[in-house]
């Protein structure tokens, strides 16, 4: 079993004033798909920070640059491909949990939960965890 907690290993960078990434009508699934596309192209953690919830960005700020780069590399290694969103689950606190599935570099199918929260009316990634099916 391999679990990835993006919230826990997101690395820091200078907090950029990112433009709002979500249009008013953007669904949680559309936002996450946009994030996945950005993550696939990302070469450094700063490329994905605008998608992250504030607490994750703050956590990133506290991380030294060299650790940040290592952790971003780890994120890339652990990433799943061909990710599909299966369900959006509304939380009582306004969050939405996406049930997702994807394939890792070892061709193993994994399932995940992605918690999206709203900050300033825009979706942000609060937490992401994956478990490989055994």
């Amino acid at each position, binding site marked *: 079993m391999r679990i990835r907690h993006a919230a826990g290993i997101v690395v820091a960078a200078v907090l950029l004033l990112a433009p709002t990434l979500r249009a008013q009508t953007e*669904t949680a*699934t559309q936002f996450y798909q946009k994030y996945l596309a950005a993550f696939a192209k990302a070469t450094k953690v700063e490329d994905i920070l605008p998608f992250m919830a504030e607490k994750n960005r703050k956590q990133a700020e506290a991380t030294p640059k060299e650790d940040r780069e290592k952790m971003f590399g780890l994120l890339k290694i652990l990433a799943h491909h061909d990710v599909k*969103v*299966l*369900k*959006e*689950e*509304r939380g*009582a606190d306004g969050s939405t949990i996406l049930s997702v599935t994807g394939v890792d570099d070892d061709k193993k199918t994994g399932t995940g939960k992605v918690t999206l929260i709203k900050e300033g009316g825009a979706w942000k990634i609060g937490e992401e965890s994956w478990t490989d099916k055994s």
Partner: protein
Amino acid sequence: MDRQVLTLVVFLAQAAGREGTVTGALTLDGETTPLRHVYASVEAGFFDRNTEDVHILFSDVPLSDDTRADRFAMIHLARDGKAHIVEVVIDQGGQPIGGAIMAKNFDGEVSVAGMHRLTPARWERTVVEGLLDMASPHTFMGVSFQYEARFSAPIPRPPTAAELNAALASPPAVAAEGYVAAVRRGELAGFLRTLTAGAAADYQKDGAARLRELRADMPADTRPTKVTPQTDGTVFVELEGRRPSDGMTIGFTVRMVEENGAWKVGK
């Protein structure tokens, strides 16, 4: 008692009984620790995948669902001296075929087999009761150990189709359907009547606008799909519908509360 109420009572009993009852103790090197918690589950048979083994866990501290699903989490608890756990695996024929003791004395976990004795009192699909013990103390890694536990534990299983249908026809599920219908109508007063007083109070400010948001977000074909009674008497009803624009399944979970004899959506 009508069928629906009876079904709910059964489901409530199952929820309340996710953890069973146990009286017993684990003794390690002469030090006795009471076993206060018991959990039963089933897995495919170790020797024959076409059969089922019953796994029984005894512990001195409560073990959450997540902890019990993660063996390493239990071992870490034991290694840190935060839990004493006895596991016994019983095959479909009612024979103990293996087990383990997790404790700091063993630096985590040790597998133990051949000494478990089961005296069943009740052995059914959804509940097991009896006595598990050892005839005499054994020693491994220089640690003497013995346990005895008289227990009754439910075996959580997914509901059968008939049980699911009955649950979906139960009063809290029907009330949840009424809540969905009220959301679809979009009329605030009627919607508020489906909520508990506490939940309705939250809609005093911007209630109409929030209902419009909820109505826009909830697919028209939303319906109850799962009923999960809680140990506090409330019932979680999961609702699902498909968003027409992309076919995505949208899920909601409402907590149904019995208030003044009627089931309502609570906070």
